[in-house]
């Protein structure tokens, strides 16, 4: 019988990988989540603690999926602290996915926003020429660089890491590198996920050059199914209309890049 995607399925965490001191990947077996599309998410229940939306990370083994979580608030810290053998509940997948073009592609990821970028890389065609930008504050926060190179080993590709403090890779904000690249190259598709200001600048830069650009947004979510309204951005609901939106649509949304809603639904500026 096909699983109702709204019903929570209990999974056991089989492996935990420390990516950085504050980022971990938790691997578990689940056929449905192992094959989600890039940009889709699951609602993840940490019994007794909280439930939060998570982009579904790829696993190298078939039938397995993962979550890559940064320790931040109470919910994400709860997930970060889950040990091998512990139970988590998953429902989904929810949301839409990226419209992957062919040819010369630019992916821009920051932090755990790299998760849907990694999944997107599993869909690129052998002829695609792929540039991946990984932005981080500092060397000890860089992760998925080796994984990116590995996923693209059969493609013409470049992986560029930027750190704000210059302790690794190129020094500076990742968006300065985006500006340089879109000024010097044509891209058939630009895809981004990460901190909203990074996405906002990336979308602006790509759009100003007439490039096709999409971003996967994150908002506070309660239900994940379009009932509670917590994740609204202007008139869009990230859970039902997104998480992926076209750049031209986003630039016409007055909240994108500027504000998000808190738990009470009050707009707060970035």
């Amino acid at each position: 019988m096909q699983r109702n995607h709204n019903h929570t399925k209990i999974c056991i965490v089989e492996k935990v990988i420390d990516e950085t001191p504050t980022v971990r990947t938790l691997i578990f077996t689940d056929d449905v989540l192992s094959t989600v599309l890039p940009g889709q998410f699951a609602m993840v229940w940490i019994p007794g603690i909280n439930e939060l939306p998570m982009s579904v990370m790829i696993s190298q083994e078939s039938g397995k999926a993962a979550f890559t979580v940064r320790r931040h608030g109470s919910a994400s810290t709860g997930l970060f602290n889950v040990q091998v053998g512990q139970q988590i509940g998953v429902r989904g997948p929810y949301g839409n996915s990226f419209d992957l073009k062919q040819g010369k592609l630019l992916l821009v990821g920051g932090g755990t926003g790299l998760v849907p970028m990694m999944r997107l890389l599993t869909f690129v065609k052998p002829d695609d020429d792929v540039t991946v930008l990984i932005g981080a504050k500092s060397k000890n926060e860089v992760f998925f660089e080796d994984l990116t190179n590995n996923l693209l080993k059969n493609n013409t590709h470049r992986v560029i890491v930027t750190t704000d403090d210059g302790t690794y890779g190129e020094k500076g904000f990742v968006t300065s590198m985006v500006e340089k690249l879109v000024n010097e190259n044509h891209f058939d598709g630009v895809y981004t996920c990460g901190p909203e200001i990074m996405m906002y600048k990336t979308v602006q830069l790509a759009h100003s050059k007439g490039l096709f650009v999409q971003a996967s947004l994150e908002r506070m979510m309660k239900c994940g199914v379009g009932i509670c309204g917590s994740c609204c951005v202007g008139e869009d609901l990230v859970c039902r209309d997104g998480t992926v939106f076209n750049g031209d649509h986003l630039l016409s949304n007055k909240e994108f890049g500027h504000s998000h809603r808190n738990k009470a639904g009050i707009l707060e500026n970035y």
Partner: protein
Amino acid sequence: MEPSLVTSIGKIQLERPVMLASGILGISLDVFNRLYRSGAGAVVSKSLSTEPWDGYPNPTIFSVNGGGWINAVGLSNPGAPNFAKMIESNNDVPIVISLVGSIPEDFEMMVKQFKNCKVTAYELNLSCPHVAKVGLEVGDDPELVKKIVSTVKNSTDVPVIAKVGLGTTHYLNTVNAAIESGIDAITAINTIRAMAIDVETQRPILSNKFGGLSGTPIKHVALRCVYEISSKYNIPIIGCGGISTWEDAVEFILAGSSAIQLGSAIGDNWIHVFNDINQGILQYMKRKGYSNINEMIGLAKKS
């Protein structure tokens, strides 16, 4: 002649009878505009309190096997003052302001916040089943209901609706108290107190343990309540509870509803559901030869 979907809930006139229920998607004016464009006759805000409320931690929603939802969002809302500021610019969308509080003074303070806003009606939440000291706990106390309704009626000329639910006091006593105090209409019903337990982890799923059951499992209970209220009282009714198709909507109108509200159906069928139901009602009216909604209200009571 094309039949008309215009309906009157007492003094409240709506272009279409299908409304957004309180608690659903109700925190952004942009979303309200979108819902109105999508076919909603009016939108009801989330229940607003005197101050902002964060609501409960997740999980706040559970999908019932076979249909329906149990939620304990916990009345999260930006607070009446913030919300009033947000809708001050609204001229187009008929907005019903849902209010939740414990004492008459809470409601009086909140109504004052909206003096510069275009408000179609106030809906008093006397029925949320999962937050202490408000909602259903207020609705279960008919004397308190009388005081609150009288206070709100004395504070505004805008029509006031009471939303009732199934608590420990017979809901008809709550309806009666509201009518005696001058209420303009009744919304029936709210979600019904319920819970869900996960057998693997052996614990309640919702963080609040208890929530409110909505959707198809409560449709026929809600329908019975609408029929009972309309049989006993001469008061306009808005039917709410498990409506997801045009047939459901027509059933509620035939039971005595002047309008209906949707909530769970949006989670199941998304925003298109407003237009789908409007079109279905129109086709039914054409087929049966009705020219306006009023001709159909309460027809099931004839036999």
